[in-house]
């Protein structure tokens, strides 16, 4: 057993913590209000080589491991949840499927710009009638004259306004009532491809969430990602990795809320002493710190298993489920400790609360995580 981070992981932690505190945290509240996506921040992350963190160096990646990825997502999320989700989706939904299932040519062409940060990574899976039940996919791809013609729509797609290409799933055939789902790498600039960015969200306001409309979008044959009919399996594998990212986000946002609550409790005086001297507050803070520590340990374990090339689906689901649920518990208590001030925007905790709520839904709801875990248990 060894709970120490490696020297590289420690250096990455130090670097991203400093970066997040100096470059990400300062404008977070303002960006949330203005719903502004910070393009320049991701340019800087690209300059630092972080946009391709876990991918091979031959495609411009950093060759770092999943634990390092979790560290970066946690630290970005601690500073700004929107930055965390953008980065996590970029790597684990945008880059990872191309890295896992792409051909050499596809990686050269589509993974490289993701690694440099020239294009953000995105993944078109969810549809208006296909959320937890991806079998409801209605987008179709029909083979015509050596090309695939795609029609349909996707919803809640992160980063697509800033992605030059993205992988999306479509029904390529129906056999005995079963849908054959296949993934394609599609240019967002292709004729007939529309990216609409006008959702009004509860939180994560400075992240980019879009709707995709495809009308006779033509995709060349060589842009099929992975094997025909494997789209469903591939996206399940993609989501396994993504869950580590969402778990790390939960830890980061919870950590931020806990730190704000602790320092407020130490300063705020009522009935002649700081809140932190009241047992009611102490118990809350102790529970918060404990839950965060446990969630982080679980996220690291899932990441470590992945790095060892072992099975990690169950642990990734546990990490995502636990971290996202304790994130909400911690944010609720952080607001409670702040009292009326916690309800006000200037104290940040209300933003953490709004941002954190997505984590119990995105990349598999808490209910779906429990289904995944139960399935792994043999139920």
């Amino acid at each position, binding site marked *: 057993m060894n709970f120490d981070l490696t*020297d*590289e992981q420690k*250096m*990455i932690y130090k*670097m991203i913590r*400093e970066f997040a505190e100096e470059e990400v945290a300062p404008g977070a509240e303002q960006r949330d209000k203005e719903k502004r996506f910070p393009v320049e921040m991701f340019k800087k992350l690209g*300059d*630092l*080589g972080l946009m391709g963190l876990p991918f091979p160096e031959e495609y411009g990646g950093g060759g770092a491991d999943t634990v390092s990825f979790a560290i970066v997502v946690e630290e970005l999320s601690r500073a700004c949840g929107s930055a965390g989700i953008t980065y996590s989706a970029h790597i684990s939904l945008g880059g990872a499927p191309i890295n896992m299932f792409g051909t050499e040519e596809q990686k050269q062409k589509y993974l490289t710009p993701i690694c440099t940060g020239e294009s953000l990574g995105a993944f078109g899976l969810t549809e208006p009638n296909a959320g937890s039940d991806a079998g409801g996919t209605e987008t179709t791809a029909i083979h015509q004259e050596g090309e695939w013609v795609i029609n349909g729509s996707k919803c809640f797609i992160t980063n697509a306004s800033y992605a030059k290409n993205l992988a999306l799933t479509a029904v390529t055939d129906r056999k005995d009532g079963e849908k054959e789902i296949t993934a394609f790498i599609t240019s967002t600039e292709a004729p007939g491809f529309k990216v609409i960015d006008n959702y009004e969200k509860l939180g994560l306001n400075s992240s980019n969430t879009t709707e995709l409309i495809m009308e006779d979008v033509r995709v060349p044959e060589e842009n099929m990602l992975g094997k025909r009919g494997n789209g469903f399996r591939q996206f399940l594998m993609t989501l396994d990795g993504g869950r580590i990212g969402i778990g790390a986000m939960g830890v980061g946002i919870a950590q931020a809320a806990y730190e704000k609550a602790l320092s407020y409790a130490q300063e705020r005086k009522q009935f002649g002493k700081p809140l932190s001297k009241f047992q009611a507050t102490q118990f809350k803070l102790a529970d918060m710190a404990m839950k965060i520590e446990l969630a982080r340990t679980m996220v690291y374990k899932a990441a470590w298993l992945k790095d060892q090339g072992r099975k990690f689906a169950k642990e990734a689901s546990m990490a995502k489920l636990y971290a996202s649920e304790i994130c909400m518990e911690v944010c609720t208590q952080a607001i409670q400790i702040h009292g009326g001030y916690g309800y006000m925007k200037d104290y940040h905790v209300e933003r953490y609360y709004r941002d954190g709520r997505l984590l119990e839904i995105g990349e598999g709801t808490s209910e779906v995580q429990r289904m995944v875990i139960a399935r792994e248990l043999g139920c």
Partner: protein
Amino acid sequence: MNIYVILKRTFDTEEKIVIENGKISEDGVEFIINPYDEYAVEEAIKLRDEHGGEVTVVTVGEEESDKQLRTALAMGADKSVLIDDEDVEDGDQFSTAKILAAYFEDKEVDIIIGGNVAIDGASGQVGPRLAELLDIPHVTTITKLEIDGTNVKIERDVEGDVEVIETSLPVLVTAQQGLNEPRYPSLPGIMKAKKKPLEELEIDDLDLDEDEVEGKTRTLEVYLPPEKQAGKVLEGELDDQVKELVSLLRSEAKVI
């Protein structure tokens, strides 16, 4: 150019100082590159990128200083040297300067850059002492550095004013805040740092005797500054407050 940086591992600025048995406890403390030395590393990398050559980062300290050297390598330095001073008794600025002088004795040096002070001991002595021992000029607290051939133009901070100095290579300078903005180590930098050379030397390797470099200063006592007392807020009519203040200054604070 042969560019050298002298660097020290110090307490993280956010750490709380705890004294145990008359010594500052290092239990569970985070260590960092002395912040002023970070300016030195940054300036060295910029000089190398502009003029070519190589940046070597040298530290005198405990074995664990390799972490800080690796960080400097991750930022972009080319090579590093750790001189272990574990065997030196009561090492002080004299010891460090003497050890460094022995290291530099057979080196071709164009410039040595250090921090203005280390934030722990804050003596600011090692740089100037080393320059004296090497018999090269030194300029402290610099905020701007321009090198043209062997001509060196420097701006230095003199208690808020600027002094412009011209000198020539080889030279030793110490960095003041404002000299530059140290870069973050990049991810490729971090991944490559382990493959860059980190030479570890003992005092013996420099033909030095432990006695020769034994510290010249003695620590008599280590104590924390007294805790801040809560202030006193005067109340009542303004005239009465003034009278009370004067009397307190006279009787309690005894400053008038």
